[in-house]
């Protein structure tokens, strides 16, 4: 994917309450505003979600001031739960990017390419399942380049609890490395050289 500046990007992050969906949206927005000096808004869903139901964060990124913060048809949809996927998949633009958690979401009923990462499993292997959202952010940064790597990494460091910077940076890098590897793998496959 190329740098998508001067374009308004609408992003929906969705999952269970407690997965850190809203935090991921906030970190993303902060990275864009404070790091990349662009405009961003965040709308978070309230209500029963906080008790473990479907939950979502709507993030807009733009170079111009944003007049209306609600996302109707996302350019990028990140799904970390099946119910979130089922609820939002119809709204995703046909040319939009779909990113899912490999283990938690089965992408049924669609005929499009998508990106998947076992971010919950990776976070578990890194020692804290709570960091799945950070792994996902790293992956998102590598795949979409909607935010610069430097800004995203700094925003993660600013937002996570003190004392967990190191593990969260590791989580972010894990997702980012995976994203780069996936892109490289697709590129290699496209040229017909999948093996060594």
């Amino acid at each position, binding site marked *: 994917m190329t740098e998508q500046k001067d374009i308004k990007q609408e992003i929906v992050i969705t999952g269970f309450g407690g997965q850190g969906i809203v935090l991921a949206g906030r970190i993303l927005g902060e990275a864009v505003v404070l790091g990349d000096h662009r405009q961003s808004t965040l709308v978070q869903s309230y209500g029963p979600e906080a008790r473990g139901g479907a939950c979502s964060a709507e993030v807009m990124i733009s170079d111009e001031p944003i007049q209306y913060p609600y996302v109707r048809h996302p350019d990028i949809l990140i799904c970390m739960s099946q119910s979130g996927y089922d609820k939002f998949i119809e709204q995703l633009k046909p040319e939009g990017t779909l990113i899912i958690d490999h283990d938690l979401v089965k992408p049924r009923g669609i005929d499009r390419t998508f990106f998947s*990462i076992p971010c919950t499993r990776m976070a578990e292997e890194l020692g804290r399942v709570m960091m799945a959202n950070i792994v996902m952010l790293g992956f998102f940064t590598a795949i979409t380049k909607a935010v610069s790597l430097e800004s995203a990494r700094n925003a993660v460091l600013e937002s996570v609890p003190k004392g967990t910077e190191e593990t969260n940076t590791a989580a972010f890098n894990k997702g980012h*490395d*995976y994203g*780069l*590897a*996936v892109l*490289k*793998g*697709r590129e*290699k*496959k496209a040229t017909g050289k*999948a*093996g*060594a």
Partner: protein
Amino acid sequence: MTNFNIILFLCGWGPHAAYQTLQDNGSDIPPEIKMVRIPCTGRISKALLFKPFEMGADGVVLAGCEPGSCRYGTGTNTALNNVEDTRGILDLLGLGEDRLRLVTFLPDEPEALLEFLTDFVSEIKGIGKSPVVPPHKKTPLVGVDDLIKQTVVAYDVYTCLDCGKCTSACPLTLAGKPFSPRAIASTIISGNIDSPSVQNDIWACLTCGLCYERCPSAVNFPEFIRDIRHILKKSGSNGHAAHGGFFQSLMRTMTSPDLKIKHWEWLPEEIRTDDKSKTLFFGGCAPYFDIFFRNHLGVKTRKILVDSLRLLNFFDIRPAVLDDERCCGHDLLWSGDKENFLKLARLNVDAIHRMGVQEIIIGCPEGYRTFVHDYPEHGIECNFKVTHIFELLEREIDKGAVGFKKFNRKLTFQDPCRMSRFENCADLPRKLINRLNLKGFTEMQDRETGAICCGNCAWIGCDSFSKAMQVKRIGQVHDTESDLLVTACPKCQIHLQCAMEDPFLGEELDTKMMDLTSVLAKTIQWE
């Protein structure tokens, strides 16, 4: 007088008669020719063919009888193979294969012989002097007893409890050899370094380190043996070299700084390297092994280097390679020649520094151990990071999006002593094996830090007990009911293959072997 030296190994049967006619007639035999009369060309091993080059000879001729007229039947054929292999090695070394020639003459062909010799001398003059620096005369060592005592103190061998754990673990002892590390230790401590058993056993030790692993007093027996070897070697011990000392000779020759070694010229075209890369791939001696063992074992250890590079390319890493890469010196260090080890180490490290490399990647466990451990220990500073290729692969594969094709084999793994025991990296190859998509993986009875050596180290002290040990080891492979023995060191392949060549046990021992690098390169794929 001339400053060119050409050695003529002359068979005493056919060509010697022709040579004698030339001498009788007072013919003008070029003065550069130094004749050595031999019983048969077939008796001149690769080690003997190569030795003159180590001593600084500019050319070597092996003159024998035509095939069919050999007094002993197969001499000329053996000579053909030996000369071909040695020429291959000379080429890799950058000396050029043209410096060695095999010719045949009948007794009644003195003119043809003279013509050949004259032509050969002018040809060699055309090529020029050999860049090999002849070894200087050794001065006999004084104060051996004191040096031995210092070594005993340095390794604190006095703490030996005489408990015998070493002897009961030693794979040579268990193979039936009358050999005991603790007995060697106590004989040396009591000042009997000259005892015949010690003088022999010092060179038989595999330095595999299993005794050190078990020693409750942590006496580093392999390194103790290594240092004792240096003292004995300097005081004139012959060192019990295997293969006629060919490999030691080869390594010593590499210490000549002006050699234009062509270590990588054979590399397949599809391999992508980059001279300006900050990462360098250090291959090791596999190309020499393949030539030397071409007829005997048919090993293809060069493939390990190609597969390593293919794996690096797979991850878009285009490493630099060192055109005049030399042996790391491991085998010289462990066979008692510290002086030449240091020369090799300096040449390699200087060449790498000149390339401005930040990281080197090594596939050979002996090379890895030597770079990370023995170079710094001997005062050779490396301003670059040393990474084993398994470390790098594990790191890259762990990033994800990489998978492995189904490999329908049941595997077992031969640990390389230098990695698994000395550098404590037994988990590294296993992590990679566990990533593979296999039919099965079963460990051998003796494994990881307790694994049994492949039977030889540093090309010395090979005997029937080494063989018995290898047979036992291959038995352990078969006990796992695996159909592929995975190795991680080219030497393991060579030595275990050698055991399988046994004319009596051969078929029973036959086992397929493959290096882990090759298994990875064969099955890895982007997902």
